[in-house]
């Protein structure tokens, strides 16, 4: 393949990813208290990238984990984090706190 074509495809991919980041994603907040998620169930729009801001109000560390969403992130005690999810197809996606999996459970409904 001609080098110019490769360059063009590369530039397009770069431009597309920049454009994608510039378009701000709607933000949803979740809190962790006593190893529970508040709200434990959240509804977000389908086919939309969403910014989750998660506050850990406990003194202990937690790890936000979801096999359904392909997400995994440590949140230190008394701290916060940001996780982007989606665009997703309509359905229910489970998440949990890996360090306290018995209590810290939640679901994201995509509609």
């Amino acid at each position, binding site marked *: 393949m001609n080098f110019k074509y490769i360059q063009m495809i590369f530039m397009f991919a770069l431009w*597309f*990813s920049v454009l*994608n*980041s510039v378009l701000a*994603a709607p933000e949803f907040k979740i809190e962790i208290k006593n190893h529970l998620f508040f709200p434990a169930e959240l509804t977000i729009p389908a086919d939309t*990238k969403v*910014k989750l*801001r998660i506050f850990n109000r406990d*003194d*202990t*560390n*937690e*790890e936000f984990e979801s*096999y*359904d969403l*392909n*997400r*995994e*992130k*440590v949140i*230190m*005690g008394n*701290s*916060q*984090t*940001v*996780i*982007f999810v*989606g*665009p*997703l*197809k309509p359905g229910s996606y489970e998440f949990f706190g*890996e*360090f306290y*999996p*018995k209590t810290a459970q939640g679901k994201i409904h995509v509609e």
Partner: protein
Amino acid sequence: MLLSSVVIILREVLEGAILLSVLLALSSQRDISLRWSLPALLLGSIGATGYAANFETIAAWFDYVGQDIANATLHLLIVLSLTAFAILHQVYERSHNNAIIACMILAVAFTVVREGSEIILYLSGYMNNSEVFPSVMLGGIIGSGIGASIGTLLYYALSCFLINSARKIAYLLLSLFAAGMSLHVVTMLTQADWMASGHSLWDTSGWIDESSLTGQLLYAVTGYESTPNANQVIAYIAGILLLLLLPRLLKKGFEVYEAKS
């Protein structure tokens, strides 16, 4: 508490244990002393402690996606170290052992930094809780023990095979490991919104669920992902090609060059 800490620690230890045993098996085939594993583990542990100690600061970078960027960088460094290792290991049949050792030390050390820091963050959460701390620590010891045993078994299993087939199996495991690491780079960058996201291409969770034992084992060894998006699939294939194909092409190229000159 005991059981969940066994599972958490095992998951973290397993990746490092498998990488280490494959590299050790390839070392012993080449008559490289296995002593390099000590500085690798030591460097990794120091790095993991440093990362965990500064975790709060790093995590807050770039509006709280610093953790993803740092982890993506670590995963990328693991892939690069393993690629350099594979090239040197295949192109030079006898020489360049020191450079090969350096690549192995780097690959193992970066893996220990990544997984070790997560273990420290997990355990440190229970430091002040005298009620559950003993059972969490016990779970951690059992989990590390199981992980180390699986690694040891793999090492001896690879050493039992004939040299040629063991090398092939070791390379296959190594390339799947590197492919999993490249997939993690994409996952971390997507999670941080530094890379465009997309719908998943397929869903194999009906066959092998990621939360099942098989799924977790496959995740540790091959970076198994039941619902990957296009970027993740591309990264995975690129990882395999980097380790399996690139060294062979370079070796062929060198042979042609040497035959000409």
